[in-house]
């Protein structure tokens, strides 16, 4: 066991910290889940890309630094410590890209990865449908073969598509085999949202920002070269993405370490003058538990990255990670709101918006009820029925 960073990793950290200190906007950008904010965030993404900080773990050919998972963790920690903007490109970079690297043709990789890294193309996820939420395998949107056109005709509706109203592309699952049930007969498509027949309607999330969208498909032609992985192979291909969504890539420890740092600052600043009570002794241990939570998550991640570096793979255990970070994120924000007392109701107290975002954690990427079933059945081996 060695919990120290190498000199090279420390150099990498120093370089990242220096660049971020010099480039992170002094004023936080408006929410990336609004049209204006999204545009401003893309400018930031472009600066990240130009300095090769957008996709540190990718090959240099695609704008990355071929950074190891360790360096990626270091970068993420520095990124959040610097208070840098949310990554509005994350669904592409963290959810689609791993699948493209694993299943994409060289042509697909060359066509989409660099544009994704630069923010020129932005991707949203087309999984959920009105009747396929926690039950993802109930997907009903169809793709019908069009030999003449050399592709597929998409029909149906996706919804709760994050930032769908602002993105240029969608990756989604559609039923190519009408006979097949549930997980079978699905195919993974890459869809330009400017394709004829696509209609996108943005709608508000809990905090009112237009962060959700409904996407309607009316005979949308998608050529064969936009099928990712094999036809009818969609579920297997998609699960790779879901894995990384649940696993460490979407929620690096740095994010929560930064939240806890803000929580500690809040506790130390508590100022009775501002309508805030001094830290209630009964809340001291809430703060301690928040601190322990984020630290435990960081350590568990270090263990996982060690296993991955040893060539092991992360299976259903990724559900434990998703359960923990999503429940933790809610607890961290609840602790802050309890500290704030009367000010907890204010929109601009620095925590209310984050709390509302944290509340989505136990719902998306597989509800925590589903995740607990997965842990019970596939990690503990309890009987399905």
């Amino acid at each position, binding site marked *: 066991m060695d919990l120290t960073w190498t000199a090279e990793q420390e150099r990498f950290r120093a370089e990242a910290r220096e660049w971020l200190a010099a480039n992170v906007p002094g004023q936080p950008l408006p929410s990336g889940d609004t049209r204006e904010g999204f545009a401003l965030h893309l400018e930031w993404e472009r600066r990240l890309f130009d300095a090769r900080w957008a996709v540190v773990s990718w090959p240099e050919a695609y704008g990355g630094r071929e950074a190891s998972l360790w360096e990626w963790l270091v970068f993420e920690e520095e990124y959040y410590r610097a208070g840098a903007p949310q990554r509005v490109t994350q669904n592409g970079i963290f959810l689609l890209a791993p699948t493209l690297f694993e299943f994409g043709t060289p042509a697909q990789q060359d066509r989409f990865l660099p544009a994704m890294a630069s923010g020129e193309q932005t991707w949203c996820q087309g999984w*959920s449908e009105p*009747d396929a*939420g*926690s*039950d993802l395998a*109930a997907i009903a949107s169809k793709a019908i073969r069009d030999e003449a056109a050399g592709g597929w005709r998409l029909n149906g509706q996706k*919804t*709760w598509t994050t930032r769908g109203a602002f993105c240029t592309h969608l990756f989604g699952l559609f039923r190519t085999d009408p006979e097949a049930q549930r997980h079978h007969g699905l195919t993974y498509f890459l869809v330009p949202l400017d394709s004829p027949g696509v209609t996108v309607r943005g*709608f*508000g*999330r*809990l*905090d*009112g920002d237009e962060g*959700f969208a409904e996407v309607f498909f009316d005979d949308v032609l998608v050529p064969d070269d936009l099928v990712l992985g094999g036809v009818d192979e969609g579920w297997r291909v998609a699960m790779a993405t879901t894995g990384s969504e649940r696993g460490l890539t979407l929620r690096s420890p740095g994010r929560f370490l930064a939240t806890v740092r803000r929580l500690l600052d809040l506790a130390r600043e508590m100022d009775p003058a501002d*309508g805030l*009570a001094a830290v*209630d002794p*009964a*809340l001291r241990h809430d703060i301690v538990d928040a601190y322990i939570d984020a630290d435990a998550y960081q350590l568990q991640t270090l263990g996982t990255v060690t296993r991955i570096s040893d060539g092991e793979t992360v299976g259903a255990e990724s559900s434990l990670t998703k359960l923990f970070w999503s429940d933790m994120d809610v607890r961290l924000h609840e602790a802050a*709101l*309890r500290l*704030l*007392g*009367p*000010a*907890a*109701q*204010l*929109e*601009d107290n620095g925590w*209310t918006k984050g709390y*509302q975002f944290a*509340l*989505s954690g*136990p*719902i*998306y990427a597989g*509800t*925590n*009820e589903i995740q*607990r079933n997965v842990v019970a059945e596939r990690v503990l081996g309890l009987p399905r029925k």
Partner: protein
Amino acid sequence: MRFAFTDDQLAFRDAVADLLEKECPPDAVRAAWANESGRTDGCWDALGEMGVLAARAPEAAGGLGLTELDLVLLAEATGRFALPEPFVEHAMVAAPVVPSSWRTVSAALGPSPLVPCADSADAVLLEDDERLLFVPRAALVLESRPSVDHSRHAAAVDWDAGRAEITEVGGPEELAAGFDRGALGTAAQLLGLAAALLDTTVAYATERRQFGVPIGSQQAIKHKLADVRMGLEFARPLAYRAAYSLTHGEPDASVHVSMAKARAGDVAMLAARHALQCHGAIGYSFEYDLQLWMKRVWSLVVTWGDGAWHRERVARAIL
């Protein structure tokens, strides 16, 4: 010994509930989110005509001479419909000490520095040096503090002490009593909000199907909602008893109010949390009404004393 309300009390509650069902549907709450005052068009007048706003004022002063025992049920009803009006501040806190000629009076006492509906109130009850101050709008200095609940225009207030319109309407005792009425009314609203959140979620979980069955048939959903129902079952009596204690001037009345506010806040937060989780993404949508109720809970749970403040008040009494 009899722990129940009279038929008259329940009938008055039902009448108010019927009025709110008509005048304050979810669309009215949503409209209040968008309009300038953050309030409804017709509800305040309708409640006034019904005598509800002055119910707690003595009959001599043009009120109905009702007590906290009557008002607690009305407050619960206003919570169930998420009524976006300063009902607690005006009808429960101000009515007994302010002439009913004042149309809208808000209030912020004790550990609750933010005044709701401040920008549309004609006057505000405030605390100054252990005294209860009545401050008309003209003498108010408002600093808007946007609440997560847009139908509740909160503001930090100061006042121009020189102004003659400012009158002292009570000393330490009236101040304490006014605060307790506000905390009790808010507790009751939180109970009504929790009940509405539970009912909405039970209905959704019964109709929404995933994996070929209603999600409400899954134990994970059933047990969450059973816990909310249990929380309500044992939080309501605390509020009703606190109303009784205030009405009869029991020595422990303030402690009873704190017990009620602490637990009403707990069950309302639990109801909001489980309601959202059981609804999933649809409940997370701004267009869906659930968020209006959740955000009201978030704002009320820390108003008129949060859980920690009220628990500490109980601790000082029993330890």
